[in-house]
């Protein structure tokens, strides 16, 4: 897996970058820091999914 640019960089612990998540209930995008509560900002749902990479992924169909 290639390095996701939206994930926090390990070199910079003082300023953690927020990671983008998608709510499984309402589908809105939520930015969360490592210290935040895992919860959707819109509807309060606690089930969040990571976003899919924008790169084209190649698979073997065998």
């Amino acid at each position, binding site marked *: 897996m290639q390095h996701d640019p939206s994930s926090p960089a390990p070199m910079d612990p003082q300023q953690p970058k927020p990671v983008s998540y998608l709510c499984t209930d309402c*589908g809105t995008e939520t930015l969360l820091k490592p210290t935040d509560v895992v919860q959707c900002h819109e509807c309060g749902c606690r089930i969040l999914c990571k976003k*899919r990479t924008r*790169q*084209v*992924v*190649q*698979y*073997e*169909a*065998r």
Partner: protein
Amino acid sequence: MGSKSSKDTDDDHEPKQQEKKLPEHLEVQRTRVVCKADAPVNTEGFQYAGAYSAMGIDNSVSAEKFCKNFKVEISRLTEDDMEFDMIGIDASIANAFRRILIAELPTMAIEKVLMVDNTSVIADEVLSHRLGLIPLDADPRHFEYMSENDVPNERNTIVYKLHVSCKKGSPRLTVKSGDLEWLPEGSRLPLASPAQSRYKQKTYTSFSQSQKDILEKPLGVKFKDITIARLGPGQVVFRKEIKGDNAEKLVKKCPVNVFDIEDLGNVTIESTGGLPPEALFTEAVRILEEKCERVISGLS
């Protein structure tokens, strides 16, 4: 080895003009392959010309005798399968055709899948594997094999596109194999490289001309109603597939309740779509002929 018979006195009574006959059990051993419950019997043919010379039978193999005795009877022929009998052929040659039909005939199948987006519940790997199982209506004889060093071009690659989405509020959608769209101009996905203004955007394939000019009929899927995935509202399947030339298996089977196959010649060929069954068998004959010529050139 043929066993000697103790009926030497019977030969004196037979007219010499009449052709000699083997005893029944030896004739069965010579001409029949019996499928027992545990294993086939009499699969080894007697190659020695003098195997039955004590009985007055000439067991030598000659092209003239083969042409006189060999015949093919077709029992069933449909678009997807055929069944025929090869009478008067050796069991080993019939088995050679069976193995060539199974493992050495080239066929076209989806091999590489480029996944752009997939929000369905099926994982990318499973979705790609299901795509690889779709029969394609493409003649492998029009394409070349693609090795590791080859660049995908219009001679060795077919490109399909699949872009299906289910809108919010609409009912559940089923993605069928008919949704695969053939791209004769090649792939439209840009490579992840810095764009250069001088040259055209590089894609995953290098088609110098459209495949419509090369092939006389459009390349599609054989069956349009194969379910690939089911999408709920809001889910998207968007990807392209690049397919190379593969030598993959075709289905060949014998009927289940056969216990006595004459010279192992009863053949059922089930085509996976690219070629009709009779073309598959002629291709198998051609492949066996090439193998024989390779051996002959190696011996000389």
